[in-house]
């Protein structure tokens, strides 16, 4: 499992991303499910397909 996940991490070639600058603009984009995890709570923003987002969350 670790190698499988490492390959996915490595696909970004060490680049780092900011939540506020890079991710936050997608909160209201209907093509994406935006997930926030805080204190073991999972919140889905823009759950445009309820059954899918419920399953993922």
């Amino acid at each position, binding site marked *: 499992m670790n190698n499988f996940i490492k390959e996915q991490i490595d696909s970004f070639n060490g680049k780092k991303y900011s939540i506020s600058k890079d991710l936050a603009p997608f909160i209201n984009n209907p*093509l994406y499910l935006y997930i926030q995890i805080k204190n073991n709570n999972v919140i889905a923003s823009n759950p445009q397909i309820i059954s899918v987002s419920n399953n993922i969350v």
Partner: protein
Amino acid sequence: MIQNSIKLNKINDTDMIIKIFDTYEWNYDIPCFNLSLPGNKQGFMFPHYDFIKFNKLGIDYDTMKLKIQNYNPKIIENDIYFKGRNTTNTKSNIRVMLSQLDYPFSINISDDNVQGDNSEPIYFLKKHKYLLDLPGLQPWSVRFKYLCLCERVFIRISFYNSKFEEKGYWKQMSDLYFRENIDYVHLKYDIDFEKPLSKTILNKIIKDIENVYSKFEKNPILYKTMVNNLKKSANKISLNNIYKYISTMINSYTKNLLIK
């Protein structure tokens, strides 16, 4: 799925984006989670959401696994079987093209499919000696992980397009558990899958499938070995392991890719 993962393994606070459709994120440079991803493409693979709810039947993967493993048909047809919807008609059209072939092919295109609540149970796939995994609207299929439970030799057909800089087939999270050409037969084609298959490519695919059929028919030990390999690998995949993957993946993503 994420909440179930948290119950088993701590997940650190984070934000993440999931592309819930069957295409992957290629438009923006963001660390996105996808349901499938071509070889070498940037991104993460999130388990398909039908792991916890199998379409309208509403049962989870572990339950489906038990149902499939406990089903033993009295007669097993010696054919190469596929049943599914006509989802490729606007693209490669491989499903319709193969449905016109005679025995040993048994390709059934229907508006209903093996996942529908009015259709045949997925464990009925075990009534057939050889199974096919054909691409859907995109060049991958969610049925792969169910075929892996059927204890039959199955042939997975994968497309990818190197002209889009795809250097390998579209992987999904289940690929973590199953080894190509050890647990199942994998036939991969570098083509423009957005267009109907050319006669040359179609004939090659048919010939390749026939060669696999012939090879296993001539060597029953080979057939048995591959099925045994598949059974062993299938024993490793479970919902708890999926949840472990989700928590490990999200924590690795947060640690390695996000600016604190």
